[in-house]
């Protein structure tokens, strides 16, 4: 069966009316995964048995009149989320056979709403990457062109939705890891405001930047998924106790009268011409929909990438210290004592990019360098945040490209990490500012690759950007395009 053109709400209707069962739907997803995933490698773990059992339970609940927001809907989560009884590898050899004794808060929320979890999605190891090439489980491929990357680090989360393997997924976004792959795969991905969604049970990469975000085939599904996972969690001290609105309620209100800012620093010379054209067309669409378009400035944009990588790597170097072979995960010990065990375990367990970031982060925090690197980066971060807060005094939301180029070829940038880091230029400032951003399809390149549009909202104003995205989606047909796979 085909569910690409149905929203979650429409599927729920079919499930509740009995036209379709969750078992049938789940079987269809599993079949689709089987048919496509040898080409995509979007999944690290598919849990067919558990998924079918959960679907059968969901069917019983549906028959009994269950009203869970996701009852019977097949979803999948990035392999960074701790899941009880399903292994959580984080794309790393060091956690190859790790099974968590608890569910991440967001996974528990999915289950509470009746979602059927069909598996765990591939990703850059420990979410470190922009291409999903850095995975112990192998490279993820873009459903639009399997010679190309799907973006990263939540490449599996975006590819699985684009390929119709599942209805919706969860990813994480530390510097663009939901938005950039959503852009490269032609789907909708949202990074909520820092503190909007609990990080409890999400394997940490850079704690002050990590945020959980949904990926879906359309804006409405994305809004619904956000509503399921958002909210204060007493187990996460950085989650914010601020009411969660009904994201579906005002979704169709349109953008007439809204002020949309175009930060001039994001429309630089050298922007890929296809992207420039697609984004300019999107601006024109918004103008026609009644929005007021104004140019604004985010003056510290140039420092974003350097600032981001210093902070993220510093935090990562500390967050990844726990993978030491002592309590869980991989242990390599050939009798060279404690230090030997640490060295062998971490040498064998971590991939190159992870090692690179741990080393750079350790350096940035070292005595004598801390002030020049980490502390300076934190100060710049404050300036960047102030840039955004100041701009949001003038406009309701911002519109920018998501990535400077469409999906690049697998292997094209692996030997040029700096170039790879620079590809995050339009997404990292939003994480540094701690606000929310969304990526939605706004065109295709000359080569037929999806191009994404980024909408950036005020802190905790996810509803605003979802509304604006919905209006665009209704006014154009980019979202209806699906890859031929």
């Amino acid at each position, binding site marked *: 069966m085909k569910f690409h053109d149905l929203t979650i709400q429409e599927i729920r209707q079919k499930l509740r009316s009995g036209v379709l069962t969750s078992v049938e739907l789940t079987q269809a997803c599993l079949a689709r995964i089987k048919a496509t995933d040898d080409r995509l490698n979007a999944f690290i773990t598919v849990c067919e048995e558990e998924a079918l059992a959960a679907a059968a339970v969901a069917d019983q609940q549906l028959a009994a009149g269950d009203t869970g927001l996701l009852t019977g809907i097949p979803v999948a989560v990035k392999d960074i989320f701790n899941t009880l009884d399903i292994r959580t590898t984080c794309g790393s050899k060091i956690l190859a056979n790790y099974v968590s*004794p608890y569910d991440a808060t967001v996974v528990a929320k999915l289950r509470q709403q009746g979602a059927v979890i069909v598996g765990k999605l591939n990703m850059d190891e420990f979410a470190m990457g922009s291409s999903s090439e850095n995975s112990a489980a192998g490279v993820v491929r873009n459903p639009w062109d399997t010679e190309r990357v799907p973006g990263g680090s939540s490449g599996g989360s975006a590819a699985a939705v684009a390929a119709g393997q599942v209805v919706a997924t969860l990813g994480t976004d530390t510097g663009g890891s939901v938005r950039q792959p959503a852009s490269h795969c032609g789907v909708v991905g949202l990074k909520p405001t820092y503190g909007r969604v609990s990080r409890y049970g999400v394997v*940490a990469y850079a704690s002050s930047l990590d945020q959980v975000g949904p990926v879906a085939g359309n804006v409405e599904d994305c809004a619904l998924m956000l509503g399921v996972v958002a909210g204060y969690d007493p187990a996460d001290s950085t989650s914010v106790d601020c009411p969660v609105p009904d994201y579906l309620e005002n979704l169709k209100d349109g953008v007439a009268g809204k002020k949309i800012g175009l930060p001039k620093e994001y429309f630089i010379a050298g922007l890929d011409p296809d992207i420039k054209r697609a984004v300019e067309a999107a601006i024109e669409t918004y103008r026609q929909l009644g929005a007021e378009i104004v140019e604004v400035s985010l003056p510290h944009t140039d420092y974003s990438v350097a600032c981001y990588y210093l902070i993220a790597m510093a935090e990562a170097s500390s967050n990844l210290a726990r993978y030491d072979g002592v309590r869980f995960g991989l242990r390599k010990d050939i009798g060279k004592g404690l230090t030997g065990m640490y060295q062998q375990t971490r040498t064998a367990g971590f991939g190159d990019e992870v090692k690179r970031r741990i080393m750079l982060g350790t350096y940035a925090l070292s005595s004598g360098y801390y002030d020049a690197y980490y502390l300076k980066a934190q100060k710049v971060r404050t300036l960047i945040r102030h840039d955004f807060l100041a701009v949001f005094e003038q406009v309701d939301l911002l519109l920018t490209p998501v990535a400077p180029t469409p999906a690049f070829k697998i292997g094209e940038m692996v030997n040029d990490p700096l170039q790879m880091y620079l590809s995050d230029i339009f997404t990292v400032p939003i994480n540094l500012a701690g606000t929310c951003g969304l990526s939605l399809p706004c065109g295709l390149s000359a080569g037929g690759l999806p191009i994404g549009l980024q909408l950036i909202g005020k802190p905790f104003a996810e509803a605003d950007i979802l509304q604006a995205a919905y209006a665009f989606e209704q006014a154009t047909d980019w979202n209806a395009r699906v890859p031929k796979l």
Partner: protein
Amino acid sequence: MNSRYEVVIGLEVHVQLTTKTKIFCGCSTGFGQSPNSQTCPVCLGLPGALPVLNRQVVDDAIKAGLATNCQIAPDSIFARKNYFYPDLPKGYQISQFELPICEHGWLDIETEGSGKKRLGITRIHMEEDAGKLLHNEDNSSSVDLNRACTPLLEVVSEPDMRSSEEAIAYLKQLHQIVVYLGICDGNLEEGSFRCDANVSIRPWGQKELGTRSELKNLNSFRYIKQAIEYEVERQIDVIDAGEKVVQETRLFDPDAGVSRSMRGKEEAHDYRYFPDPDLLPLQVSADWVEQVRSSLPELSAAKLQRYQDEMGLPVYDAGVISADRQLAEYFEALVEQYNQPKICSNWVMGEVLGALKEKNLTIDQCPVSPELLAGILQRIDDNTISGKIAKTVFEEIWQNGKTADQVIEEKGLKQVTDTGEIEAIVAAVIAANPGQVAEYRAGKEKLMGFFVGQVMQASKGKANPGMANALLKKKLTEM
């Protein structure tokens, strides 16, 4: 005191708090459970787990800060101290670094060597403890993480102490405070109160501090004194031999009475402290501080003063009683019932402490409650029993927990105050001892004691000694 060198000592004390649950998770802090039974994803450092601060720990830190005259920071920050060790599950310890919760405090001490002196407290910060390593016979090690993530306060002094005597006085005072506050059980041997000492020497008159060594593994006041004195001698020997003291960490071996180098400056860790992004900056409002302040018990120094000023106790009595919070509470409950503080302190320091010591009990285990003891003292006051009989009554109550009145009644211990009855005994005593009577009348007045003793004996101690004395005098002079 050395004639050539001045000794400089600073102390770092780790105070293990007695909160029910750990500092960043809900696991129990109970002692002596089976290994790793009191753990959860947070204190095991499992992937994805996050810390949540225990509010009670903040309350306790504020208490300690207020009791040591610190300023309580309205904003303080938790930081990660990064290093690898198997007992440290996350590979970092959550501590406080740049902005601790308490700063700029002091304690007043008094020693024989240097009299009264004020010692600075640099800071007090909150942190989590590490787990424990158990070394097995086969040369492997096991990790027990029950202690991981239990709450500690680290109290850092200024390098203000100039002798081991001052260091011990400071430690004892700090120990008394945290036990008084009820935030620590004060057990040195079990590691609830752990001390590291930074020791250096410098020629008298030199301003700059000498190179210090840090002494670890000091788990009794005696060892701390020994270790400091050994270290001072060692440093003097090093300098006298024309060498330089090197900055290092030294481990004290109490059996050998010596310390050994553990690691030098080069091997010192670069802990790469940075603010923990998983915890928000801690904000402590003035209201919060006041709330804690109003819950503080009266501390020993204040009691010491009050016992002297308001109750008129001698400094010695006030010192003994105020040193232990529970003893002081016993004493105060007693005074509440029987408002003669000096008599109360005599009984508490004499009979009560004596009996406790003999039976190896602590004051909270004392079978004679302040109420029961007050009952005895009241019966002395109204002449029902003599002070001597009172001690018998005390022993009886210790055994059976009855009231003074019950014991006096049952044992027939009521003092004889009937003049006729005592007169009869006096007459019998005089009749029975003609020789002594003659001597007394010849001027040997010292014999009065003998006659009183005879009367008391004949009355089985129940005759009122004052009345016996008066009647004897009267009869003997009348004759």
